[in-house]
């Protein structure tokens, strides 16, 4: 399938601060692609460059074959943007807002009327179409915000954190709308969020972005497979390289590594491996398991046999949250 979006080494600098550091990815026509990352990771800045809101500092991108530097005006006709903020005129009715956003994409007359009716149906707001937006609930405003990005029937829709501050009912409605647009109309969608559940539910492929860089990009299944059967965080009073190697060699264990604290320097030839000095709270060892339950049994048996005190035990189910934690050492919502 042809790519509707190709991004190569796209960067954005604000003075000395580099918000996006050479990201590269491609989105297939008809795909729902996720950009997952914590707040401030660079998701919105990336979208801003791809939609023409911000000029890129370096790199290139093509939207529907149009270069975003040389042919942005054409690329904009293909794009639809649903910004994170409620980018609407609250004193106007939903219909007046949609009429305006349709007109600036060149729609008029009967076409405009039909398109506005269509998107109002999609977001289930036909009954409230002629009421002022300022009288709507937060969820309804979000739905109009989405409708405004759809009114000109874009081929590629950018949904930037569309569920922030939305009640569960409206959130479900937004999910259904996104799935229907993709399934029934073949719309390509880039969905950014810091909620891994949303990305898992909606997206076929995901780019995990942190501090302006894409640190992983694959299908959700493959990303989760990075963690094998799950992750076990084990709190110990002490640890050294030899202990980590022994833990990694246990049956059902794939990897073992210390979290957040640097390992003791490797011992010189013939020297005894140094133990990592225990802090007041000890150290935490991250164990990537092939089968989490079997690995837990093996690890506890191993530690008991060597008289090493276990101070804590956390079993992480394999999901995007744990993948992000595994890759960055941070939680998504930190």
């Amino acid at each position, binding site marked *: 399938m042809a790519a509707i979006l190709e991004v190569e080494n796209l960067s954005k600098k604000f003075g000395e601060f580099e918000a996006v550091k050479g990201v590269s990815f491609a989105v297939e026509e008809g795909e729902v692609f996720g950009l997952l990352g914590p707040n401030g990771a660079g998701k919105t800045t990336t979208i*801003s460059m791809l*939609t*023409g*809101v*911000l000029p890129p500092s370096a790199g290139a991108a093509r939207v529907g074959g149009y270069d975003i530097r040389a042919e942005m*005006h054409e690329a*904009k*006709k293909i*794009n639809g*943007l649903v*910004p*994170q*903020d*409620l*980018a*609407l*005129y609250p*004193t*106007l009715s939903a219909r*007046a807002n949609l009429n*305006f*956003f349709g*007109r*600036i*994409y*060149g729609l*008029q007359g009967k076409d405009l009327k039909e398109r506005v009716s269509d998107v109002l149906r999609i977001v289930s707001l036909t009954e409230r179409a002629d009421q002022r937006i300022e009288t709507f609930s937060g969820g309804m405003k979000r739905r109009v915000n989405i409708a*405004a*990005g759809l009114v000109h029937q874009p081929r590629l829709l950018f949904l930037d954190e569309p569920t922030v501050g939305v009640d569960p009912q409206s959130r479900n409605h937004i999910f259904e709308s996104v799935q229907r647009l993709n399934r029934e109309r073949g719309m390509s969608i880039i969905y950014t969020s810091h909620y891994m559940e949303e990305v898992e539910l909606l997206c076929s492929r995901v780019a995990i972005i942190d501090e302006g860089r894409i640190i992983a990009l694959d299908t959700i299944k493959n990303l989760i497979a990075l963690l094998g059967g799950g992750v076990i965080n084990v709190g110990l009073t002490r640890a050294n390289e030899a202990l980590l190697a022994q833990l990694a060699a246990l049956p059902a264990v794939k990897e073992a590594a210390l979290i957040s604290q640097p390992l003791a320097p490797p011992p010189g030839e013939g020297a005894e491996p140094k133990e990592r000095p225990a802090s007041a709270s000890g150290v935490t060892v991250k164990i990537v398991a092939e089968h989490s339950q079997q690995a837990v049994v093996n690890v506890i048996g191993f530690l008991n046999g060597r008289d090493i005190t276990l101070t804590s035990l956390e079993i992480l189910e394999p999901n995007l949250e744990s993948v992000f934690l595994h890759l960055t050492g941070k939680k998504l919502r930190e």
Partner: protein
Amino acid sequence: MFKNTLAIAWKEIQLMLKDRGSLAILFLLPLLFGAVYGGMNLKFADTDDAGILVRVGVVNLDTGIFGEEITAALHTIDELQITDYETAAEAEAPVATGEAAAAIVIPAGFTEQVNAYTPTEIEVIVDPAQPESASIVTGIMNQVVDEATIWGEIQYGIRAVLEDSDAFTTASPEQQQAFAAQNLGVIMTQLNEMRRNPAIAVVSEDLEGATIEGGIEIFFALMFPGLTVMFVFFIVGVCAASLLNEREAGTLRRLLAAPLTPSAIIGGKTLAYMALACAQVVVLLGVAAIFFNMPLGASPLALLPLTVILAFVAAAMGMMIAALSKTPKQADTTGTVLGFVLAGIGGCIAMGPTPLTRTTGFIGILSKLTPHAHALEAYYSLMGENATFVQVLPEMGILLAMGLLFFTIAAWRFRFTD
């Protein structure tokens, strides 16, 4: 491109129509201001027309033509309330009690004495408690009696000249009388013609040097455009805030993601606020013309391009303020303060008899730096002085140049992103 500009302009107009507070400030406030200010001036003007009313008693004891003419002349003077009496005592009584300011007594045989060129006098009895009124009556009487005096002088002159002529002495009394009357008629006709078209005209001026020719309507041709120009520039703050609100609310982001050029965004907003400003001018000047008889001048069509250019300057100034401000509140405040200050410097608030641009010295030069003063000068020239379109072209040109400068600064300095 132009369709997009129109789409933005239409959206902006829809937003304006929902903003009742701003509409009240832009339309109702100037109307209220104009009605009160205009009404007060009309009242003062009416009072001026009525003049000062002085009660005067008149006794005409003369049976000739001059006594009759002087009495009739006094009755035609608006400033005097004349009461006729039979005797001098009757006329003096109200003066003594302060009910009348003066009593005028025309003596018996007044006409005969004038015709005979013998000294005579009209007695004016005044109330010393009303010196100003007494002075007015005395002044009026001098003017009225002047006519009779001139008449007597001319008659005497004609008779003296004719009596030295042989032809006159040999003529019959009827012929002499006809000859004298003919000469008197010719001279008086010539005299009256000279009075109507004096070789040296004297124009009255008030303390500030204003011509009082033309009346209150001409003053309105300065006052109402002054108010209108001032309130048109009130849109500067509203207009500036509206552009910055787009950025703050996030809608600007959406506009930038659409196939629109930045100039279409600024142009659309400018167009909308121009329409608003034009509507303001039409309403305010329309009300002034209908209810206060403000003249529209000999070239009313020239008001249209002037108004459009004025509206452009105000909207472009709003865009410039937006480009130089950080928040909508800052822009609104700056626009409003600037509107007041420039209105003051431009002569819209404390109006003199003519636009400030005609004042010499520092104030005149300073006023010319404001678009307000140039707009006011052009409106006054067109409406108050019947100037033609061509005559106000320089002012329109200056205004247009100012508007283009503001618009260029706006397009150059406005940050479309956060």
